C-alpha cells in the first residue's frame, strides 16, 4: 500500500475510533450532571426529542426526578436502569446492543476497503491489448518532466 492509501486508511480508522469512543457513552460508575442525562435521554412524552428539549410539563417533572437522583449521588448505571424500568428502552435513544451501533463504522471501513481495491484496479487499468503490448517510442526524460510541469501549471490556473 502506498503512503496515500495509508493516510486514507489512517483517516478512516481515526473516524471509526471517534465513532466508537463517542458511542461508548459515559462511565456507568460516574455521577452525572442533569444536563448530561437530559441531553442523552429521549423523552417518553415527546416523540423524537430528548428530555432536555421536550417542553411538556410531564417532561419537566421527569427532569426534576432525575435531578433528585443526581443529588442522591446515583450513578449513570442506576439512573439509566431506573429510566428503562419506568419508561422502557425507548428512552435510551440508541441501540442497546453494541454491535448495532458499530454497524455504521464497520460499513464505512468495508466500503473504504472495497473502494481501495477498485481504485487500485483503476490505477492498474485493463490488461493490455496486442496493440498496446507493442513497445512505445522512446521519450526523453527531460520532455516527460517538462510535460508534467506544464500540466501542473495548467491545472493550477483558473478555469475558463
Amino acid at each position, binding site marked *: 500500500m502506498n503512503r496515500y492509501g495509508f493516510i486514507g486508511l489512517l483517516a478512516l480508522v481515526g473516524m471509526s475510533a471517534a465513532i466508537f469512543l*463517542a458511542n461508548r457513552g459515559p462511565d456507568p460508575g460516574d455521577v452525572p450532571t442533569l444536563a448530561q442525562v437530559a441531553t442523552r435521554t*429521549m423523552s417518553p412524552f415527546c416523540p423524537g426529542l430528548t428530555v432536555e428539549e421536550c417542553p411538556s410539563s410531564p417532561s*419537566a417533572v421527569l*427532569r426534576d426526578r432525575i435531578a433528585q437522583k443526581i443529588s442522591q449521588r446515583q450513578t449513570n448505571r442506576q439512573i439509566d436502569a431506573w429510566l428503562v424500568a419506568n419508561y422502557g428502552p425507548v428512552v435510551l435513544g440508541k441501540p442497546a446492543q453494541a454491535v448495532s451501533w458499530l454497524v*455504521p463504522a464497520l460499513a464505512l471501513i468495508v466500503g473504504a476497503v472495497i*473502494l481501495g481495491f477498485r*481504485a487500485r484496479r483503476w490505477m492498474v487499468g485493463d490488461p493490455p491489448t496486442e496493440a498496446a503490448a507493442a513497445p512505445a517510442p522512446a521519450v526523453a526524460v527531460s520532455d516527460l518532466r517538462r510535460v508534467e510541469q506544464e500540466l501542473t501549471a495548467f491545472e493550477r490556473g483558473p478555469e475558463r
Partner: protein
Amino acid sequence: MDIAATGRIVLLAALGFSSWGAVAGTLGRMRRDRRLAESAHRALLAAAGSTVLGLLILILALYIKDFSLSYVAGYTSRSTSRLFTLTAVWAGMEGSLLLWTSMTAIYSGTAIWMAKRHRPDLAPVATAVASAIITFFLALLAFSANPFASKSPVPFDGAGLNPLLQSPFMSIHPIMLYAGLTGFIVPFCFAISALVSGKLDPRWFTSTRRWTVFAWSMLTGGIILGGAWAYSELGWGGYWAWDPVENASLLPWLLGTAFLHSVMIQERRGMLKVWNVGLILGAYSLSIFGTFLTRSGLLSSVHTFSESPVGKYLLPLLAAILIGSFGLLGSRYDRLRSRRHLDSLLSREAAFLFNNLLFIAIAFTVLWGTIYPIVVEATSGTRISVGPPFFNAVILPVGLALFALTGIGPLIAWRRASWKILKRQFAIPATCGAAIILGLAAAGLRSAGSLTAIALSGFVSVVTVGEFVRGARAHSTGGIGGWLHGLREVVGRNKRRYGGYIVHLGVVLIFIGLSGNAFKQSWSGTVAPGSSFRIGDYSVRYDSSRNFATDEKMVNMAVLKIAKGGRDIGTLRPQRNFHFAQRQAQSEIGIRSTLEEDLYIVMTRMDSERRATFRAWVNPLVAWVWLGGCVMAVGMVIIMSARPPRRPDPASVARPAERAAVPV
C-alpha cells in the same frame, strides 16, 4: 357545480391518460413505433394537465369552504385565513398525495417535452417509466386516498387547520420539499431509459442536469425551511431532531449531493459512470422510501400522517423501483465500466471518490438509525428509539471529514497532484485553521466537535475565498473597479464552479451555526408576575400578562422585559393559546435573534393566578444557520443560471468528402 364529482372525474381521466402513456410508451419502444411514442407523450402531458386541474379543484373547494368534501371539513374552518387555507392543501394525506402526484406529473411532462427534440431516442422509455409511476399514485388517489370524498351530513363548520401548520414557513416548506423529492424523477426516468436503450453516453445526464440541480436546490431549501419551522413553532429550542421524517428528506439529499459532485468526474474524465447512475437511482428510490415512511403509520412523528392503507401499497412500488432499476444497472455494468485510469490517489478524482464514500456512509447511518427501531419492534415487539445520542455521535466525525474535503478538494489537481505544490497551497488555510483552534482553546473552549467545526470553517473559507481571489486577479484590470470586473468575469465565465463555491461558503456558515449547539444554556421554572429570572447574561422580568379571544383561539400572552448588562434591550411576548376548533393548546415562541445568539422563551403553562411556567434557552449562533441557507440559495441560483453547453448544429458539421472539396 358538484366539486366532489368533478374532481373525481378529473382524477379518473388523469389515471386513464397516464395508463395509456405507460402502455403506449412501452409498446412504442418495443416496436420502434414513433406514432405510439408520440401518443404516449401526449398522454403524459394530458395526465399532467388533468392532475394539476384536480389540484386546482381541491384548492377551489378549500377556498370556498365547501364542507361537503371530507377533506375540506377536516382541515379548514370558517375562520381559517386565506394563506393557511392554501396550506391546508398539504395538511392531510389525500391533499399532500395529490400535490406529490401533480408535481411528479409536471416535472415528467415538462422535462420530456423539452428533451424530446434533442433526445428522441430516450423519450419513449422515459415517458413509459414516468407514466407508470404517475399511474400508480393516481390509482392510490382514485381508490385509496380520495381527496374528493364526500361528507354527509355536511357540517356547518370544519375542524380547522392544525395550529402547528399555521405558520408562514409551512406555506413554503412542503412545496419546496416536494419539488425537491419529486424532481429526482426526471434524472431517474432518463437514467432508466439510457440503461434500457443501451445509449450510455453522458448526454443523458447532461440533458437532465439542470433538472437535477433544480430538484436538489428545492430539497435543500425545503430542508432548511423545515428546520426554521421546527425552531419557530415546536418550542423545543432546536431545529433538527433526527426525526425519522426529517431523516427521510435528508437521505435523497445526501445521495443527490454526492451525485452533483461525482458527475464532474464523469464529465471531465469519463469515470464513475456506474456510481453516478447508482446515485441517481438511489436518490429517487429514497424519495419514494420517504413518502412511504410518512404515510405508512409505522412512525410516530409530528410530521407523519395518521395510519392509512396507502403505506402498504407504497412498499411494492418501492420494491419494484429498487429491484427493477438496480437490476437493470447490474445488467449494463460492463458497458458502463470506465476504461480510464486513475492516475494517482493524490488527485481530485480520488478526493471525489472519498467524498462519495463519506456521503454514502452518512446516508447509510441515517437509514440504519431510522429503520432500526421499526425492525426491532417488528421482530421482538420491543419499542426502542434511535435519536440524537446515536446520530450525533456517529455522524459528527464523518460530517467533519466531509466538511474538511470541501476545503481540500478545490486545492488538489486533477489526475495527479504534487505534494510540494499541495503543501504550498495548504499552508495559509491550514495555518488559519490551526490558529483558530489555538485561539479558541486558549479562550477556554473545550468542545472538540465545535473546535474542529469552527477551525474547519476557517480552513474552508480561506480556500474558497482564495479561489475567487485567484480567479479575479487573473481577470482584473487594476484597482478596486478592476477587481470587481475581474470577479464578475470569472464568475460569469464559470457559473457552475463559482456558484458551487458560494454554496460551499453557505455550508461554512451553517457549520458555524451548528457549532453553537455545544454552548446552549437552558432554564426552566415558574414565575409570578413582577418576578424575574436569569439565563446566561440575560435578565428576564415577567412584567404582565394579557388574555383575549379571537375567532380561532384563546390567547394567553406573557409580556417579558429583557435586559442584558443592566440595559433594557427589548420585549418578548410568548403565548400559550387554546385553539377552539382543534381543542388543542399550542405555544407561540418569543425569540430575540442576533448574530451572536438567540434568546428563546416558551411559555408552557399559565395558571389561574397568572403564574407562568417558562422554558428558556440561549442558543448561540443559530442565525448563522439561516444566513448560510440564504448564501446557499444565492449559489444555487448562480449555478442554475449557467448556460448549458452548446449542442453542435448538425448542419454546420460537414461530412469528410465535403470538407475535402472546400478550397483551403
